[in-house]
Every structure is written in C-alpha cells, then in structure tokens.
C-alpha cells in the first residue's frame, strides 16, 4: 500500500502545487486574494461548494452514522441538502442583489452595514468562531486517526495534525481564495471518485441493493426504519437538523462567500441545481459503506470500523486512494472554514488596507493554531459535532435573513436576542441547562423563537423613506 500512497500522494501534491502557482500573482489586490476576483464559473463553483460542504463528515461520518442509526440517516443529510439547495436559489438571489455595487467584505461586515450596528457583525463572527473552530479541529483529528491506522507508529497523531495545518496554511497563503477554489475542484472530484470506488466494493460484498437490505434486515431490522436502533432519528431530531442544514448557506461564511463570488446570477443558480445532484451522488455510496459496516463491524468502535472498511478490506491501490481522498475531503473543508474566518475578520477591521491584510493573515494563522489544539483535545462523533456546528451557526440565520431581506429600519433587538440565543445554546452544550423543554429540543425552540422575533422585528420596523435627490431648479 505504501507504494500506492506515494504514487497518489505525489500526484495529489503536484496538483495542489499547480493550483497554488496558477493562482499566484505578484501584485494581486486584497480583493483578488480574499474574494478570487468574484469571477468563479459554474464547474469551479459547484466543485468548490461541494468540496467545502462534503468533508470528513461525509466521507467517514456518514457511513458511521448509517451503520449506527440506519437508513433514516438519508433524511438527516440528503433530504436536508435537497431543501438547502432550493433555499440557496432563493437566498443567493437576495444576497447577490444586496451586495451589488458594493465591495463584499464578508457576512460580518455586510450584516453590520444592514443593521447600521457593528454589534451584529461581532455577534455573527463570535458564532462562526465558536462553532467552526471545533468542527475544523475534529476533521483534522479524523484525518490524523486515519493516518495513524494506515501508518501505525510512524508519527504521533498530533504530528499528522500539524502537517495538515501546515499544508493548509502554505497553499492558502500562496494562492488565496482562488488557490483554495482550484484545489477544492480537484478535491471534490477525488472525493466523489473514491467514495464511489469504496461504496461499490461494499455493495459488491452483498451482491446488490436488494440482497444488501435483506441481509441487514436479518442482522438488525431496526436499521431499516426510523428512528433507528439508538432511537435518535425521531421526526423532531430530523426537523431540527433540516433547519440547521438549511441555514448553512446563510450562516456559514465559507458558503456565503462562494455564493457571492460566482460570476453571475445565472451561474449561481445553476450551481445550486448541480450541487443538489452532487449531494445525491456523494451521499448514496455512504449508505453502502454504512450497511457493510453494520453487517461486518456492528460491534466495533468508530476507529476500527474506519480502518477495516476503508483500508484493510480494500485492495492496496483503493486503500491508498481512500487515504488521499480523506486528506482531500478534510483539507478542502478545513481550509475553506479557516480562510472564511479570516475573511470575516477582515470585514470587521478598519484602517489602511495593507495593515488590514496583515492582520487578516495573522488571524488565519492564529485560527489554524487554535484548530490544531482542538484537534488534539476534542473527542466526539464526527456527524454529531458537525450537526452542533450547523445548529450553532444556524441560530444567527433569522438575524442575517432579516438584515438582508428587510427594507425597513430594524430595531437592534434581534441582535441582542440572537446573542442571548447563542449563550443559551452554549449553556446547554456545556450541560449547565437542559437541552429539552416540554419534550421539545432546545435548538428547535431557539430556531422558532428567533424566527418569530425576526418576523415581528420586520413588521414593527420603520419603513425607510427613499429620498429623491433634489434637482438644480429645486436648489
């Protein structure tokens, strides 16, 4: 296997270097560096959005989620993604209309302008920082665990994590957002190819889809229906997850930025459709891998399942591809998130552009270092931590949608309510307050309450008076 890892690893590294150098320009402006010149076409747009969205969470987390919770995991992610691409069409139109004619410097900067209140930007940045960093950390950790299983004893897990962070920093520093988008395109294709190769091998183990579910029905029938053997996938959990995932393009800055930097409205809309098709294609084989795990490794822990299903049970070349595919999946998402945090920081800074860019780059470095430390200390299930990340940033959804859509002067109350919602959610995550009230999940209550608050804020907002410019005779 080592031979194949070198072969595929060198090809992959070569493509990354090519992407970085192709994007590098000596005297590029900060707009080119941070926003890729706002000129991304359809194919690159789909692949970068998909690569940023489908990470180790999909590559490793979803097979594990299917293995443990059964077929209703499809609703958790695929139906939610289907609804999300529809919302992307609607929200993408509005945000692009909003930023038309102005320089887009991240969601935090935009939302501060919409509310004419910088606190809105700070609250948004805080939620992004709090919920993206642990998510980045656990993805880096996922890669490190996998590499440790592939090459036991060669490096400590933190050594793999440090290497990943270093690669991420180097190529984003050389090429900026454009390099990230180019490398995302490579990584998106690689992820799709590898997940299908492994998925197909797992399906072949059963001899087809029908026999696969027959076998699983005989092993553990609960896996074939909701709520699954653990009782997790209840309608309420799935609904709250749908709302959290729907809010991804609104509240996770790496996606909002990608919507804005698409070349045209038409390209953005076609990107939404293609992304939906991509989601189906990429999630489908994770069912096969998950069912394979349920059949052969139902009693195993997460790490043993990954090592067996992705490495030891596969031919050497496929196992090597899995390693490279996993690095690609993790790297593309983590660098998109870290870079987006830098971009958001830039939107909040004031002063000379050179000094802002220096501070932004220092910010990206600091965020990477914090994510690295998280990758060493965080222990959780990939999918559930990802869901917490989506829900945590999703709390900001009503405030952002209201700020972008409303043509009225809005009271800052929604900003304070969103901050309160964020604190309440954090308290429940820390175990200081319950996460269920009267049988309803806290995240669902917060989504509904903040959604209602946003509607009331809009209805009670003061209509903006359009002031007609005076003509010369009036002067």
């Amino acid at each position, binding site marked *: 296997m080592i031979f194949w890892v070198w072969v595929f690893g060198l090809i992959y590294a070569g493509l990354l270097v090519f992407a970085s150098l192709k994007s590098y320009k000596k005297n590029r402006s900060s707009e080119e560096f941070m926003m890729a010149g706002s000129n991304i076409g359809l194919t690159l747009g789909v692949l970068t959005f998909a690569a940023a969205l489908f990470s180790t969470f999909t590559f490793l987390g979803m097979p594990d989620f299917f293995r443990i919770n059964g077929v209703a995991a499809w609703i958790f992610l695929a139906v939610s993604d289907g609804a999300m*691409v529809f919302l992307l069409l609607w929200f993408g139109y509005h945000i692009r209309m909003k*930023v038309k004619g102005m320089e887009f410097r991240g969601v935090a900067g935009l939302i501060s302008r919409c509310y004419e209140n910088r606190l809105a930007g700070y609250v948004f940045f805080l939620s992004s920082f709090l919920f993206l960093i642990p998510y980045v950390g656990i993805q880096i950790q996922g890669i490190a665990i996998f590499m440790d299983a592939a090459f036991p004893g060669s490096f400590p897990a933190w050594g793999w994590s440090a290497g990943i962070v270093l690669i991420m920093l180097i190529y984003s520093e050389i090429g900026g957002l454009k390099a990230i988008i180019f490398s995302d395109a490579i990584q998106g294709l690689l992820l799709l190819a590898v997940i299908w190769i492994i998925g197909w091998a797992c399906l072949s183990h059963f001899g087809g889809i029908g026999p696969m579910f027959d076998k699983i029905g005989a092993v553990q029938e609960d896996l074939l*229906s909701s709520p699954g053997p653990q009782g997790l996938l209840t309608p309420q959990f799935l609904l709250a997850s749908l709302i959290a995932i729907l809010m991804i393009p609104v509240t996770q800055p790496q996606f909002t930025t990608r919507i804005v930097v698409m070349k045209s409205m*038409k390209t953005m809309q076609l990107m939404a459709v293609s992304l939906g098709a991509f989601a189906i294609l990429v999630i489908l084989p994770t069912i096969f891998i998950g069912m394979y795990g349920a059949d052969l490794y139902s009693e195993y822990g997460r790490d043993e399942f990954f090592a067996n299903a992705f490495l030891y049970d596969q031919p050497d070349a496929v196992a090597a591809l899995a390693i490279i595919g996993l690095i690609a999946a993790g790297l593309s998402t983590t660098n998109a998130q870290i870079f987006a945090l830098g971009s958001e920081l830039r939107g909040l800074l004031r002063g000379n552009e050179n000094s802002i860019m220096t501070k932004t780059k220092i910010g990206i470095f600091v965020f990477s270092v914090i994510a690295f430390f998280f990758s060493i200390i965080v222990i959780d299930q990939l999918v559930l931590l990802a869901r917490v990340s989506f829900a945590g940033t999703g709390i900001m959804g009503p405030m952002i949608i209201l700020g972008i859509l409303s043509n009225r002067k809005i009271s800052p109350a929604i900003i304070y309510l969103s901050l309160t919602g964020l604190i309440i959610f954090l308290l429940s995550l820390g175990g200081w307050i319950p996460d269920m009230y009267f049988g309803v999940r806290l995240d669902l209550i917060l989504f509904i309450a903040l959604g209602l608050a946003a509607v009331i804020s809009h209805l009670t907002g003061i209509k903006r008076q359009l002031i007609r410019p005076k003509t010369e005779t009036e002067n």
Partner: protein
Amino acid sequence: MEKKRLYWRICCIAAIILSIITFTPLVIPQGVSTPELGGVPYSLWTSFIITVLLVVLTYIGTRVHPGMQNEEEDL
C-alpha cells in the same frame, strides 16, 4: 413576469410541502420498513424520491425565478 411570479410561488409551496411531509408518518412511519421498492426499505425510497423532487424543483426554480430577468447582470 406575473406568470413567472406565480410559478415561482408554486415551486416554493411545493418545496415546503415536500419538506414537511418528510417528517410525517407518510415518509417515516416509526419502526416500519415496508412496503419495499426493489428491496429498498420504505423510508429510504420515499425520502430518496423527495430528495430528487427537491432538486428538480430547484431546477424549475432557476427557470421561473422572477429575478432571472436580470440574469445578464453580473456583479
């Protein structure tokens, strides 16, 4: 333009209805995996169809979205 607005609204309503019925016993009857389709459990094949329909609706949405009149305008 008015027709487009109407079609767009129909698309939005259809997307909302599809999303809502996913969480009802129509798609996820608790603990029930039949009737199967080609050996695929009930909740999986129904939710798969819903996912495909949502993507199809998104495609139709790109054709009827009222804002597409400005589609030539770039940022």
